[in-house]
């Protein structure tokens, strides 16, 4: 059936919950209201208020109690209403969830999934559009997943819930309903930490994830129309730990790479992917790795966001420049 990303995630939650009694869904407005984006719609009606419940308005409280529940043996799927508020619970995420296994030398795990919508381009107020994923590269112990389409979203969420360690699952707001895709009715998983090669090519590698995938695809289309270049497109899907092997293999082949992310430039995924290419593929590199990113400023007010976020034209120009000899 063709599903939007919201529907695919909802289906994943429903299927996982019906297979595993330990899974509970919690967060602000996830119950009767079904989440502000309706991602948890109908779940409370189906699974009851014990397994799907609204919490008080406190993000540290949500993650902190979810950590306790995960240690106890449940599999909490906690929603933070917008990713911009993850920082309110930063200590619970980074210094707690990410370290339960470490601190207990393996006695306890923390099988927790934190779902949160993120990303710009939909004219939301402050803190509703930010891409925080890059900060979580410097916070060992957390996995970070950003699906770019309904099919992946369903399979990656199932894998995230199954994972014995904490996973931050970031859902791009713009992608929630922007298109439908064929999604199998039955349950399936997509392994965390594995990228997808969406288009094969030999001239340049474009690496992106989440909400920037359609932008990268449109850019590639334009470049191809212009010069017929052969472009490889990698969707990271998991940004920590990311799939170094796929990147390295591709860049060793193409010798050129362009990374696209709407997150700020400094020290995020664009930096680490560039560094990994440096670590492993330097001698194959024909041009500097291009980084098409947000700027080193806070995410702008909605009226100014269009010029902050990478656009197809900006990405296309970077690809062209990278192809240039």
């Amino acid at each position, binding site marked *: 059936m063709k599903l939007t990303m919201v529907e695919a995630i909802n289906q994943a939650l429903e299927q996982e919950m019906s297979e595993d009694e330990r899974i509970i869904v919690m967060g602000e407005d996830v119950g009767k209201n079904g989440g*502000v984006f309706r991602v948890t719609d109908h779940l409370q009606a189906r699974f009851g208020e014990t397994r799907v419940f609204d919490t*008080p*308005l406190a993000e540290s*409280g949500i993650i902190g109690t979810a950590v306790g529940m995960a240690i106890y043996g449940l599999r909490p799927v906690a929603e933070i209403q917008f990713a911009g508020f993850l920082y309110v619970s930063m200590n619970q995420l980074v210094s707690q969830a990410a370290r339960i296994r470490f601190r207990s030398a393996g006695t306890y795990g923390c099988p927790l999934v934190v779902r949160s919508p993120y990303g710009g381009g939909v004219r939301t107020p402050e803190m509703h559009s930010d891409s925080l994923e890059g900060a979580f590269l410097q916070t060992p112990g957390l996995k970070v997943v950003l699906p770019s389409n309904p099919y992946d979203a369903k399979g990656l969420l199932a894998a995230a819930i199954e994972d014995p360690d904490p996973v931050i699952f970031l859902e791009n707001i713009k992608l929630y309903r922007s298109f439908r895709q064929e999604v199998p009715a039955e349950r399936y998983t997509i392994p965390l930490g594995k990228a997808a090669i969406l288009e094969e090519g030999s001239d340049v590698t474009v690496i992106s994830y989440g909400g920037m995938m359609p932008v990268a695809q449109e850019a590639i289309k334009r470049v191809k129309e*212009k010069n017929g270049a052969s472009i490889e497109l990698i969707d990271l899907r998991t940004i920590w730990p990311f799939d170094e092997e796929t990147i390295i293999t591709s860049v060793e082949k193409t010798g050129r790479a362009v990374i696209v992310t709407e997150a700020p430039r400094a020290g995020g995924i664009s930096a680490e992917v560039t560094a990994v290419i440096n670590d492993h593929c330097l001698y194959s590199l024909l041009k500097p790795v291009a980084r098409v990113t947000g700027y080193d*400023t806070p995410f702008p007010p909605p*009226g*100014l966001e269009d010029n902050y976020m990478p656009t*197809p034209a900006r990405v296309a120009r970077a690809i062209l420049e990278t192809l240039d000899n």
Partner: protein
Amino acid sequence: KAERKRGVPLSIQELVSEAEVPYQILNEDGQLIGSPPDIAPDRLMEMYRWMYFIRAFSNKIVALQRQGKATTWGALNGHEASSVGFAAPLLPQDWIAGSYRDAGSYFVKGLPPAMVAYYQRGLPPHYPAEAHCLPVQIVIGTQMLHATGLAMAAKIKGDPAVVVGLCGDGATSEGDVNEALNFAGVFKAPIVFGFINNGWAISLPRSRQTAAKTLAARGPAFGIPSRLVDGNDLFAVYATVQEAVDRARNGEGPTLIEAITYRLGAHTTADDPTRYRSQEELDEWNAKEPIKRLRLYLMSCDMLTEAEDTRIAAEAEADALATVEEAANTPAPPPESIFDMTWQNISPRMEQQRTAMKHELEEGEGL
């Protein structure tokens, strides 16, 4: 037993020890059941006009949002008495830090409403510094610590300034709000905390936000006197805030005031409240709404006629329209202004990025 309390401010002991009845001066029917605060007639009429304006303004933004001309907006309907009552007792040197739902308080304090309309266009508003209104921030509850810091600073500097910090019932669950109460108590900061309890935090009713009977009960937990008031009663809010502001200005420290009101509209333009609350509840609160009862009171003491009221309503409409038009005609800053808004002295790398952004703008969206 509850009845006997009406018209008498409750002490905190009573608050905590039994079911609560909010302090009320003007009841739902516009009748005085306590002694009204000392407000000059002109000033009272001005406050009444503000209440009308706040509603008209909010309705206007909702309409604009429906036309795609404004970003998500949380309607102010129902909050008019609380909004005016928390701001009207303040002096120019005083400050307010509130949430999106407290725009009405900001207007009364001196923020040009066009700033808020401009913000709703998705643009960065230049709050005039002298309004002493903290630009609204979105992380629920967090401004209460800023408010406390402002008050601590005023005290450190020896300024006779008082701060009003406002947040909703949902916000009281955030750690920051509790930390703010605690800091204010410890440092005896000149601050008035207003918990604007409108019954809901998006879809979560007050009863599920905390097991405590009242939010005012948070006061004694942090050594702060607290009061419970009917937030739809301008007189009760004004009188209580005035008293708390006086206390703060006299060096007697913080006060917590819970104002019980109701969110008559949707949480925001993105929300559908029929999913989680009943029409009966809404009807009940519409009957208790703040403008009506003040109108009845003003008419009953001959301060207002039907005709005047109609005129005031029309003026509010016209003002609201003029406000959004002013905002619509205020030019947007160039996209590259985001760099200069980040730091006073931007880095060479940011200079380069600004240049690059301008270059991108020139190149445009074609390839």
